[in-house]
């Protein structure tokens, strides 16, 4: 067993474990933190697979996003601490069946498909980042710019939906 294989397996298992904890705990804040740890484990998994830029980006972005999610948990959930042990689920058996079917199907594809010759080495981090930059601003420029405009649209839409309308005072009131 190589070191890379060990770390990919370890962080993959950690990511899956914390992903399961998200839906097992009654505390909503712990759910958000469990998702944070899951995403961080995946970032470490990316680093193990020599995708340094993506790994660092994943850890940075997900740490921020999940922290914000924890705040929303406290804002919107009836029992953020989980002391009441409320069960906010439905159609559990169906969901479990669909989840297991999806997992088994994906594993079957992964194991039985012939993926062809596998690469043993990857470019170093500096070369990868340079190649990614050239890809984003070269061949994938249209996709990159479309994504940027989409983000801007989503930000404006989210702000418009979330902003509380201010009631204008009528002439009689003033």
């Amino acid at each position, binding site marked *: 067993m190589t070191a890379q294989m060990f770390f*990919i397996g370890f962080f*993959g298992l950690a*990511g899956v474990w914390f992903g399961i904890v998200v839906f097992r705990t009654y505390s909503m804040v712990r759910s958000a933190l469990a*998702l944070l740890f899951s995403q961080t484990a995946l970032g470490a998994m990316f680093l193990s697979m020599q995708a340094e830029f993506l790994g660092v980006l994943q850890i940075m972005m997900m740490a921020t996003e999940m922290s914000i*999610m924890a705040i929303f948990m406290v804002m919107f959930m009836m029992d953020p601490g989980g002391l009441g042990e409320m069960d906010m689920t439905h*159609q559990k058996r169906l969901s479990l069946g669909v*989840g297991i079917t999806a997992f088994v199907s994906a594993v079957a594809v992964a194991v039985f498909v012939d993926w062809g010759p596998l*690469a043993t080495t990857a470019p170093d981090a500096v070369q990868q980042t340079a190649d990614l930059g050239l890809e984003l601003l070269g061949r994938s420029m249209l996709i990159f710019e479309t994504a940027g405009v989409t983000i801007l649209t989503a930000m404006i839409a989210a702000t418009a939906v979330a902003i509380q309308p201010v009631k204008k005072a009528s002439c009689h009131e003033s």
Partner: protein
Amino acid sequence: MSPELIIALISGAALFGVGIYGALSQTNLVMIMMGIELILAGAMVNLVAFWRYLHPDVAAGQMFVLIIMTVMAIEMAVGFAVAIARFRAIGSVEMEEATELKG
């Protein structure tokens, strides 16, 4: 066959399955979004594994992962905006209570 690739793909499949379970079983909008986050994370793991072990010299694989990260951020932003609006309207983000459009 590289065991590293298979391990990564199995991890991605497990995340996908857990995410689907969460998205289908939870009644709260925020928890459903957490399930969707796990589904997208599973897809990202697979993409990175395919990039690393099949085409490490092609940067488009990493670019695809960046696009998925963008989608995750957009989905969270819009989803939480909808959650805020919903909470202001009726004081709850439980999806079982969202029956206004039901025929």
